[in-house]
């Protein structure tokens, strides 16, 4: 508890990230020890989604601007890592016309993933020059357009990606434990970005577009940093994905995946803990629905295949979230911040100082500039 309310922001950030990671790790290790092969598979998918969703949240959660484009970055990470790790013999057969530095390369996981991330970040920077200046509807449309462009380019660049066909022969590097390591890296990056001064300014601006524009350059620059970083994290998740499914095709990184990922982002809330909650709940629901969708029978009762059922239910879930908790289940809070608030409130209520504004003044008493700025966010969160 002391660490979560520590004076230095990075201590708070790192301890918060550690808490979240431990939560994930405990569950994953338990699945590895006691679960079936299917359970392990689901857990791995969960970790991959968690990385991408946390990456998306780094932009969406901090800026308050939705992006449909992150699946595109995920695809870039996946293809980047896949193309540089696959063996030369496979590539000579599958993509003989590709440039020789790709065909001849047989890199390890780390350098290949870094290439994928770098490509995604460079692309993110290039389109970011426009994207970070857009908000609301325009940003949504522009990122959706970007997604379509990535899809069209990947499925037509036959000599590099085999076009619409699957690129297979990717080395199987992803398992529960590589997944956990990547999640740890992602949490630390995302949380440090979120709690840094830049993240703080961005978050306090997200409700007030006019204020955001008034403060001008800084907001745009902060958005850019978050945008590029979040693209990198999505690409990291993409690489993890590629080495898990072993065969990738452009269609896998299109609307369906975008829809699932965006649902996870929305349902959880605009924080990293929110990403965790959203990813976990949607993974479970989706798995359950997938089974229902393929048709099942209980006794004499059997259900025909119901294509699209998952989408309908997840869609209804989004609408329900929007009606009941438009800011997602956890709103803007990290779990550790909620714990601290709870703790502070309890100590505060022990004191004979009943005040309508108690909850707000409390966070000021922690001292340090970061928290007082946060209380501004909290106030705007109230109504």
């Amino acid at each position, binding site marked *: 508890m002391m660490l979560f309310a520590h004076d230095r922001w990075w201590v708070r950030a790192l301890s918060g990230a550690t808490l979240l990671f431990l939560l994930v790790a405990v569950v994953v290790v338990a699945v590895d020890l006691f679960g079936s092969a299917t359970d392990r598979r689901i857990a791995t998918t969960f970790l991959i989604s968690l990385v991408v969703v946390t990456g998306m949240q780094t932009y969406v959660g901090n800026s308050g601007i939705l992006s449909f484009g992150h699946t595109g970055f995920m695809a870039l990470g996946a293809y980047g890592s896949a193309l540089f790790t696959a063996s030369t013999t496979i590539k000579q057969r599958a993509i003989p016309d590709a440039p020789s530095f790709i065909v001849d390369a047989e890199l390890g996981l780390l350098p290949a993933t870094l290439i994928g991330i770098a490509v995604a970040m460079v692309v993110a920077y290039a389109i970011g020059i426009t994207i970070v*200046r857009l908000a609301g*509807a325009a940003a949504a*449309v522009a990122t959706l*357009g970007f997604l379509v462009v990535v899809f069209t380019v990947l499925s037509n660049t036959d000599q590099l990606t085999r076009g619409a066909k699957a690129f297979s022969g990717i080395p199987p590097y992803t398992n529960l434990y590589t997944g956990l390591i990547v999640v740890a890296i992602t949490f630390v990056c995302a949380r440090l970005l979120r709690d840094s001064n830049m993240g703080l300014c961005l978050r306090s601006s997200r409700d007030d577009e006019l204020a955001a524009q008034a403060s001008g350059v800084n907001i745009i620059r902060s958005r850019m940093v978050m945008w590029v970083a979040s693209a990198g994290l999505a690409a990291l998740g993409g690489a993890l994905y590629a080495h898990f499914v072993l065969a990738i095709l452009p269609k896998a990184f299109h609307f369906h995946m975008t829809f699932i990922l965006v649902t996870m982002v929305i349902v959880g809330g605009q924080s990293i803990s929110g990403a965790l909650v959203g990813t976990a709940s949607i993974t479970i629901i989706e798995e359950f629905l997938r089974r229902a969708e393929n048709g099942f029978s209980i006794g004499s009762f059997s259900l025909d295949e119901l294509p699209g*059922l998952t989408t*309908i239910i997840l869609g209804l879930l989004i*609408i329900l979230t*929007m009606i009941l908790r438009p800011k997602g289940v956890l709103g803007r809070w990290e779990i550790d911040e909620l714990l601290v608030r709870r703790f502070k409130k309890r100590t505060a209520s022990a004191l004979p100082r009943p005040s309508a504004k108690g909850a707000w003044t409390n966070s000021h008493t922690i001292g340090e500039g970061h928290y007082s700025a946060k209380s501004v966010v909290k106030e705007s969160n109230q109504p």
Partner: protein
Amino acid sequence: MNEVVQQIINFLSIGSIYALIALGVALIFSILKLINFAHGELMTFAGYAMFFFHGFGVPWLLLVPIAILSSVVAAVLLERVAYRLLRGAQPLTLLLTSFAVSLILQSGFLLAFGARPKAIEFPIWVDAFFIVGDIRIQWLDIVTFCVTMLIVLTLTVFLRRSITGLALRSAASDFNTTKLMGIHANRVIVGTFVVAGVLAGLAALFYFASTPVVAPKSGFEPMLKGFIATVIGGMGSLVGAVIGAFLLAALEVFVEVTLVGSLDVYVDAIVFGIAVLILRFRPAGLFGLRRIEDVRA
């Protein structure tokens, strides 16, 4: 020279369809700050309605009002069932809701009609053409353009002369003060959706006449084009939406003509790149000037 004229006609026809879509999107956005992802599904719905009623042997002349009516009904239902629950919510909340609604409808179409595209059999006269000099001109292109211009004109008159039209325009800038004029919020909002429904129905009619198959996801691509046109023109500006639509169509036709051979699959990517470039210099779109009162507030 003939090639040029042919392409200009092509551009006018595509631009008209985009304009009809973009107008509907912009209208709803200007008043409700809602970017209606389900606008494409209104078109798909009209497409299925045409397919369905044609199967019953309903004559073609009747299918036109049926197509329009079906998307109007769908639009009004959409507002009643989904969007009304979230009236006055944050734009991001509205955006996500419409995104979900759009996907739910797509899946609904999938459940109801299956994934396989259904062919809509248009009568042969849709393909009728006439020849001027060496140029073969399709009547459909001419009709599309003329009807669109007529609709733009009607809409302009409606928005300038009728009280409901005036209320739509005033609600776009200040909803509360519009209520103070004694105008019921529903009159404005339902009115908006009715007009958007008419626009979507007409767009569907022309779109499916040139691409005569309907599938659950048919509406997505034209919707995205309409969105991009709206964003280029400036979110919420009706004039901007029409100009953005024709600009987008011009870009498409131009890029398609200029690109050679295997590169033509990248038309959308290149057009999108140019659109992004425009937004780089005008983030609010070409006509998305900041309102005076926004600056003052």
